């Protein structure tokens, strides 16, 4: 701490603060914080918790940072306060985020320093160049040159470090990357100018070296900014996914804890309608659970004490007491982990467009520079002139289109997708999606919504639906919530009445003056059990015939339209599912997919994708389940909904939010336009090189003119990139 070195006047307050315990900060991801008003509500809600000292919401990052006095305030308390105010929050899982943002701001500092230096040196250079035409005093010219050197040298040493470090590591590995010619151009131009200043020559080009550095740093910063933002969003999603678990403490008391803090051996209560927070063993209770997120199978499975359940399964019945088990002991997860590791290895071979271009470009640049230098020496020019011409060639050919325009296009594409609720997780994801010619869907949770919907809506009258929804409104069971949603769809106002009693796993009952009103399983409503079923609910009022409610996982509302549009655009489509044959066939028929496979294991899905890859197809995989995770990792590019299993979101390149499937189209078209713009920018850069390089080699271009021409082309390609963000808001 530096407090003791402070002057006495400010030291008193600082010491006073120091004596208290240093505040701990909790960082929470807040999903639905979208406007200025939300910032205030979030901060107020967090401050209202006893023991919270400060709260600061960050709208861009969708996070709130809460300073707490002591360990008595837990993340769960703040989350409860926020959810009371209507916000969905989750504790952040800290994974090296700090070092990433600090690297980003270090780059921004270098941009600022090089920008300052470039402006001032340009100012001095303009005076020198225009003074030469007139009658400027020679000693004044020298003064200006030395001033430029004074500004340029520290700048080149400080701001150029990212390029030198990258060039050095490439050279150590006996490779060439684009940072090698960049470093060479900057160091040579600066060194040469310093030499010319010392001997008092006119060929001083600090301005060219520093403005080159400035432009390249902007590109580097944009690239890093996209990576940090993509990773931050991905982390938010994962944190929100994990949520809060009810830990059973000593003596049976319940305590909310973040799910990621659960340890093997902890006992947890999973209420009706809640998802299992971790892989666990059932200790007591029995219930039907929905495993569709894990296996794609939509029919619920009955579990009893001793059964193994996986994180992400949905409890449809009564509350279960479970004991958390270590993740690696589960055979299904271990298998999926093994498949994913293998699949990701294959994908790491992908090389980005800019890298591939650099592979051809870098040797060419070096060759041209060297040829210019040697050529002029052979012709008989002094070595200073030859070197100046070679530096001009290096500056002219500097890869601004690669270093600036591609990141600019990617940033524009990313912010366009962010606005539409699509998060880019892999920095090279856009480039891979743009190459896709085939789209493979999973069924459960991807083509369908992944939660039960009322399907015999038409057979139920408004009056029955109103009463059933009123009963259902107080329950968290997915079927009850589906009934409420169906009522709301028909513009029926739903209010939960008093006196409703819920027997978990069976049903709801309310005593009316005229008799009993029941909603639940066939048995619960006093109907012969053989008329019941796993996806049926009955509504019974004493004197009337009971009404049947059927539930199924319904297609996303725009699934058929999206599939048609994909086919119109020339993509081949396929459906791969782990679900039963009949359910898959039905979904395939409804959406018009002719290629489909059912009852696939994760390994079979990968085999199927591998067959496609052998045929030369680039597959975009869209899936959500745990069983899709290896396929998502293995496919050329992948997309998953925000409701997907934790591990699948980790594997996917993109995550989209909302109830619609249209984001698939948006990702495909944005990626394609981003690639076209990148290629256009390469074209611009290439044309300009073709024209300018011969002049530079012939010695007609001074480094100053080279720097101006290079800057113009950089600005041109950047403006071209911004076209992507602007249109079609």
């Amino acid at each position: 701490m530096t407090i003791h070195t402070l002057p006495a006047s400010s030291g008193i307050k600082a010491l006073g603060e120091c004596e208290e315990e240093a505040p701990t900060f909790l960082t929470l991801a807040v999903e639905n914080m979208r406007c200025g008003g939300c910032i205030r509500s979030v901060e107020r809600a967090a401050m209202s918790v006893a023991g919270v000292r400060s709260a600061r919401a960050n709208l861009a990052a969708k996070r709130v940072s809460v300073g707490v006095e002591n360990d008595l305030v837990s993340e769960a308390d703040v989350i409860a306060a926020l959810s009371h105010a209507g916000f969905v929050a989750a504790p952040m899982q800290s994974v090296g985020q700090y070092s990433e943002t600090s690297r980003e701001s270090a780059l921004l500092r270098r941009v600022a320093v090089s920008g300052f230096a470039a402006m001032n040196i340009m100012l001095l250079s303009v005076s020198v160049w225009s003074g030469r035409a007139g009658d400027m005093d020679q000693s004044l010219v020298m003064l200006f040159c030395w001033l430029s050197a004074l500004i340029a040298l520290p700048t080149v040493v400080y701001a150029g470090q990212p390029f030198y470090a990258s060039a050095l590591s490439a050279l150590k590995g006996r490779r060439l990357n684009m940072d090698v010619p960049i470093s060479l151009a900057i160091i040579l131009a600066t060194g040469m100018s310093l030499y010319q200043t010392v001997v008092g020559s006119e060929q001083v080009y600090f301005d060219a070296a520093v403005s080159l550095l400035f432009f390249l740093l902007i590109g580097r910063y944009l690239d890093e900014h996209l990576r940090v933002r993509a990773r931050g969003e991905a982390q938010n999603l994962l944190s929100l996914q994990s949520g809060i678990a009810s830990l059973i403490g000593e003596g049976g008391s319940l305590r909310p804890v973040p799910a990621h803090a659960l340890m093997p051996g902890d006992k947890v209560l999973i209420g009706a309608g809640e998802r299992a927070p971790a892989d666990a063993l059932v200790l007591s209770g029995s219930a039907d659970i929905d495993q569709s997120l894990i296996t794609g199978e939509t029919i619920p499975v009955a579990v009893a004490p001793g059964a193994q359940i996986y994180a992400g399964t949905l409890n449809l019945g009564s509350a279960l007491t479970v004991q958390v088990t270590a993740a690696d002991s589960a055979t299904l997860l271990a298998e999926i982990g093994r498949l994913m590791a293998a699949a990701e290895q294959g994908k790491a071979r992908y090389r980005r467009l800019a890298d591939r271009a650099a592979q051809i470009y870098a040797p060419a640049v070096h060759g041209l520079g060297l040829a210019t230098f040697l050529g002029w020496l052979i012709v008989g020019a002094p070595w200073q002139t030859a070197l100046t011409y070679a530096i001009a060639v290096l500056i002219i050919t500097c890869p601004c289109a690669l270093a600036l325009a591609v990141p600019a296009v990617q940033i524009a594409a990313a912010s366009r997708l962010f606005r539409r609720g699509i998060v880019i997780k892999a920095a090279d994801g856009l480039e891979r999606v743009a190459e896709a010619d085939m789209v493979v869907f999973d069924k459960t949770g991807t083509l369908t919504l992944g939660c039960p919907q009322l399907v015999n809506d038409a057979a139920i009258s408004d009056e029955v639906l109103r009463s059933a929804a009123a009963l259902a409104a107080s329950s968290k069971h997915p079927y009850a919530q589906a009934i409420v949603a169906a009522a709301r769809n028909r513009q029926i106002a739903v209010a939960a009445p008093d006196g409703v009693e819920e027997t978990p796993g069976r049903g709801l009952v309310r005593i009316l003056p005229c008799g009993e009103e029941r909603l639940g399983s066939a048995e619960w409503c006093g109907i012969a059990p053989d008329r019941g079923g796993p996806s049926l609910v009955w509504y019974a009022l004493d004197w009337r015939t009971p009404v049947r409610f059927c539930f199924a996982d319904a297609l996303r509302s725009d699934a058929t339209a999206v599939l048609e549009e994909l086919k119109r655009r020339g993509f081949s489509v396929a459906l791969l599912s782990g679900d039963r044959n009949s359910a898959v066939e039905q979904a395939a028929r409804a959406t018009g997919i002719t290629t489909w496979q059912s009852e696939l294991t994760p390994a079979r899905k990968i085999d199927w994708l591998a067959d496609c890859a052998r045929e030369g197809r680039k597959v975009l995989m869209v899936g959500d389940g745990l069983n899709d995770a290896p396929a998502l990792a293995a496919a050329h590019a992948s997309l998953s909904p925000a409701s997907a299993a934790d591990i699948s979101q980790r594997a996917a390149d993109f995550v989209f939010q909302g109830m619609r499937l249209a984001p698939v189209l948006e990702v495909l078209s944005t990626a394609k336009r981003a690639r076209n713009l990148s290629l256009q920018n390469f074209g611009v850069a290439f044309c300009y090189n073709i024209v300018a390089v011969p002049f530079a080699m012939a010695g007609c271009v001074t480094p100053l003119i080279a720097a101006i021409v290079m800057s113009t082309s950089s600005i041109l390609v950047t403006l071209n990139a911004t076209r992507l963000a602007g249109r079609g808001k």
Partner: protein
Amino acid sequence: MTALAWLIPAALFLGGLGLLAFLWALRSGQFEDLEGAAYRALEDDPPEDSAGTQSSSHPE
């Protein structure tokens, strides 16, 4: 000509002041939430106590 003797240092000093101001702003977290800051300017209530501003510069 003697004017240059103080004009150039003055220009560099002012430019350097701008650079330092930017670096200070960066360090104190002024650029951490560009979207939120736009809305905070529109709030009617008096700004929160010092706790709110302190927390903006801490590491996550």
